[in-house]
């Protein structure tokens, strides 16, 4: 399982984590991938930013 997460699968897990809690094995596999993949860490930060921007968009003056 640990080797089975590529960028494609990692991006899916990073996204779905905003909708449901990840299972322990999903989390573990994701972490293994993130540790060695800067692109997916960038993607992870960008999802956080999108989330933050969307919330701000709702109440902006």
């Amino acid at each position: 399982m640990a080797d089975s997460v590529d960028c494609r699968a990692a991006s899916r897990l990073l996204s779905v984590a905003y909708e449901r809690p990840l299972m322990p094995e999903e989390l573990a596999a994701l972490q293994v991938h993130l540790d060695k993949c800067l692109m997916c860490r960038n993607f992870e930060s960008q999802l956080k930013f999108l989330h933050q921007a969307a919330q701000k968009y709702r109440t902006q003056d």
Partner: protein
Amino acid sequence: MGPSTSAPDPRFAEIESHRPYLVRYALSQLRDGQLAEEAVQEALLAALESIGSFGGKSSLRTWLTSILRFKVVDLQRRAIAERANLAHDESEGENEGWLDELFDSTGHWREAPQAWSNPEAALEQRRFWEAFERCLDKLPQAGSRVFFKREVLGEETETICKAEGITPSNCWVILHRSRIALRACLEKNWFGKEASFG
């Protein structure tokens, strides 16, 4: 507020500036473009009539949205008969073929997400929000609606699925796709070295 009013309240222009957000809100709830425009129009008229009662306790946007919500619910009731026909108009299915455009056969990003420098600062810039709205507009309709409900309004996935007539996994796929499309659009047009909007 009649036609004889000579000096328009300066807040009229301010109210008008929230129209794009309000249209998106209405679209996320009504999915019918014409109905959404109608709801926003009615809400803005109502807002102009009662601007005097706006105390500034919440943000103007929040106040306008609460007025719009009533109009939306009203129109939803009128449109409910059509709902059944519309529920499956653009179901994305389980098909994840779109991922092939973003990832190569070994599962790597075709266009690697870059590091964005100081993204929080963008949130304070008016032009960033214009870029943000343009990127939202580029999403497929279902994607734009679901992203808006989930991320902007914070609705529960279950509520969204019910309203859209789709399964949770469909919903996750749509959100995954929308987030990737949005981040790519913002990188290209705002955060990237060759950004064209900023």
